[in-house]
């Protein structure tokens, strides 16, 4: 809101200065034309900043989404590789009646429900824990960038090797403490646990970094006041720091949510949806249906359902996150 008035002021100054100069030289008719042309040029220059991105995103984002909609209501002709006849809700009915679709939605929900709270809690917990003042703090913070710049597909493959039941070093160590060897990729629950471990390994450092920045940004006088009032470390943490951090925690949750609904690479490299369909997240399922089974119409219908579900939930989360709502 404040920026709007500021830019209006800039535009006003800009316009007034040039119009004044124009009317000195020409008659009143020419001045009006000049002003109109100037207003148009100004409008164009203002929109020219936003136009390129709108163009690219319309072509690459809006068009594919509408095309997905069209395919989802059509039968698909594999000979011409395009949408054929309008079939109404047929594809949706078929998808809704497919138990595999519901299974993969369930798998995705389990992953989201465990991974997201775990990562946010771990991230903020570790940030609190390790934020002691010592010479190595800066180095650690720098090193914490590394897991998140490791490509997810590399992370999946790398952990598959580490968790391997026969030769993996994790199982060797678990064996030393009497736990194992565990058949991480042969057991449905363990495979899901493995996927969550890999995802958590990749993303928790990101949350630690954000939490650290948020901790550093907290107002110090509040803590001094709490100290003077005789509050101990725990009550300071729970009744002063955590409430102040709630907006950042909510924002972090939304950011992770936006990333996690795209879950694909890690499962592809680590489990390929298995064993059975135990880790077959919805994105992998749609991918398989489209590009292996060539069921484009059905997968388009699934994509539309997932798109709507994601948008609705994202909207709800954005609404719940006050920090992000300030933007609108």
């Amino acid at each position, binding site marked *: 809101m404040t*920026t709007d008035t500021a*830019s209006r002021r800039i535009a006003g*100054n*800009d316009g007034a*200065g040039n119009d004044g100069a124009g009317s000195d030289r020409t008659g009143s008719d020419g001045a009006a034309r000049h002003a109109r042309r100037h207003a148009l040029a100004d409008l164009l220059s*203002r929109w*020219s900043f*936003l136009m390129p991105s709108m163009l*690219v*995103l319309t072509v*690459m*984002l809006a*068009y*594919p*989404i509408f095309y*997905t909609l069209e395919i989802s209501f059509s039968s698909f002709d594999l000979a011409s590789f395009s949408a054929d006849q309008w079939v109404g809700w047929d594809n949706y009915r078929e998808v809704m009646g497919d138990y595999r679709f519901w299974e993969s939605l369930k798998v995705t929900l389990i992953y989201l429900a465990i991974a997201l709270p775990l990562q946010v809690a771990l991230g903020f917990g570790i940030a*609190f*824990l*390790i*934020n*002691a*003042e010592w010479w*190595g*703090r800066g180095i*650690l913070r*720098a*090193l914490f960038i*590394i897991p998140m*710049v*490791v*490509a997810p*597909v*590399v992370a999946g*493959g*790398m952990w598959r*090797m*580490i968790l391997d039941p*026969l*030769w993996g070093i994790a199982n060797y160590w678990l064996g030393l403490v009497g736990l194992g060897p565990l058949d991480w990729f042969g057991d449905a629950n363990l495979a899901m646990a493995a996927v969550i471990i890999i995802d958590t*390994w990749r993303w928790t450092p990101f949350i630690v*970094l*954000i939490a650290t920045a948020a*901790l550093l940004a907290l107002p110090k006088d509040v*803590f001094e006041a709490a*100290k003077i009032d005789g509050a*101990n*470390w725990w009550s300071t943490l729970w009744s002063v720091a955590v409430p102040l951090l709630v907006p*950042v925690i909510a*924002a972090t949750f939304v950011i992770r949510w936006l990333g996690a*609904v*795209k879950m694909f690479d890690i499962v*592809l*490299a*680590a489990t390929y949806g298995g064993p059975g369909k135990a880790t077959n997240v919805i*994105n992998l399922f749609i*991918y398989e249906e*489209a590009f292996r089974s060539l069921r484009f119409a059905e997968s388009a219908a699934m*994509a539309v359902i997932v*798109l709507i579900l*994601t948008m609705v939930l994202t909207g709800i989360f954005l609404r719940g996150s006050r920090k992000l709502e300030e933007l609108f």
Partner: protein
Amino acid sequence: MSVPATSSAPGSAFWHRMRILAAIIVSLFFLFPIYWMVLTSFKQQVEIFTNPPTFFFTPTLATYKEYIARADIVRRLVNTVIVATGSGLLSIVVGTMAGYALARIRLRGAGTIGLLILLSRGVPPIALAVPMFLVARKFGLTDKHITLILAYSTFLIPYVMWLMRSFFLSLPKELEESAMIDGCSRYGAFFKIILPISLPGLLSTLIFSMILAWEELLFALVLTNRHASTIPVAIAGIAGDTVNGANWGALTAVGTITVVPVVIFALLVQKWLIKGLADGATKG
């Protein structure tokens, strides 16, 4: 630079030492897998499959030599560099301009457009992959670098736009105001005044965009097959190659090649990167 919430821990000196110890243990957990991958990539095939696992051995480049030649890794590496650079540059130019428009220029309906673009960050790529593949096939645009570059811009432009928007909002308005009163055009103010002081923010956003493009798998899998195929596709192939058993030599060697340049890059600009990440999460 004390953090009051945490530096006044119970019992100070002892707890302080315990927390440093905890910090080291936690970072070992997060760094060990990468260390292990790099280490394994220098092992001979027989040393990879030993129980207990070996930490000390004579390093060899055998795996690198074998797979760089065989798996077409160099071409895929070049493709990945082209696509990451192309989409990073496209998105930074286009997204920065849009971010500036949303932060500073009064436009009717811009708020709605901004909100739509923010929401687009939630679009699951799989919903785009199916139609993109069909359209690219129809126009003969599959397996081309430009197709991937444009596909990546769907998630990079919104990212750059919102990050740069919050960055521009944090700059004092007086900067352009005075420049424009002095007769600078809107573009003049943007290029001469705003961009130079935004360079650190621009650089970290560009690098993070390039990293996101570097590691993308789904679009690359769907839109390319030979000519423009990228490194993540190769790794997915090696990781999923269960016919030949676990090919960990190839996996660790190609994985290391993929990770090391990005890590070096990220560590060089880590200060800006962390700030950009934190701003991105807390402001956009």
